[in-house]
């Protein structure tokens, strides 16, 4: 089923809902994705630990792309179906001029290989499933977390 069809289907029932946010490639704004994750986790009936785990996992999706560049945006789609939350994070070109992306400090001072390895370890434990793919020529990182699972 196409992603767009999933979203349309989600809007037809209160057991399913979709929240989409799109942010410029700025490290300061990734916190908005964490806020959204906490909200939708609560609506899925997650307990506080699970909500914390989902917040961190969504943050790690952002890390998986490496340095955020000013000419990109991150689009997050949160799909809740009952007690399960699916999150897709797509890195896409920005139509803005964008001046809030990766500075020298972020690119130069972060060991991205190490961060990715740690990130993968965390995601393995925090969520039910996760992965990366190329869809329509764009990088996508995604995760699924079900209440009561993936919180070993």
């Amino acid at each position, binding site marked *: 089923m196409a992603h767009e069809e999933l979203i349309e289907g989600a809007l037809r029932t209160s057991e399913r809902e979709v929240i989409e946010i799109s942010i410029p490639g700025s490290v300061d704004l990734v916190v908005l994705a964490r806020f959204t994750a906490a909200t939708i986790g609560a609506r899925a009936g997650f307990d506080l*630990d699970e909500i914390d785990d989902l917040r961190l996992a969504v*943050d790690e999706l952002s890390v998986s792309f490496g340095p955020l560049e000013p000419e990109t945006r991150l689009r997050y789609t949160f799909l809740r179906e009952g007690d399960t939350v699916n999150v897709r994070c797509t890195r896409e070109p920005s139509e803005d001029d964008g001046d809030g992306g990766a500075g020298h*400090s972020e690119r130069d*001072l972060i060991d991205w290989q*190490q961060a990715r390895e740690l990130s993968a370890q965390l995601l393995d434990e925090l969520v039910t499933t996760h992965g990366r793919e190329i869809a329509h020529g764009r990088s996508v990182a995604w995760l699924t977390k079900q209440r009561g699972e993936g919180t070993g």
Partner: protein
Amino acid sequence: MTSPAQPADGALDLPTLEVEGELDLAVAPWLRDQLDALYVGGADSIVVDLSRATFLDSTALGVLVSALNRSRERGGRVHLIVQEPQILRVLTITGLQDEFALHKDRAELQRRKGKQ
């Protein structure tokens, strides 16, 4: 967010950095700079006080691991003061809980140092 670096805590007798808030990609470069400053002067062991930190992601953790490697090269340790369950969970998941010297507060660190 994160507070400015605190001056070395004489009571601990080790270069100390106290941070607060959410340690994420936005803060990691700042954290790296602050930790680098602790090693100026040839310190081998340092203290990072995370008592008031509420979040730690892989980028900030990676910065702490870099400090850990640096201290080890000098024969020292990185002491973390941490009680936040989510941060402890991150350390456990990544298998790093035994690599850092973990303490629940400064008093515990002082007691342990006193026994050495």
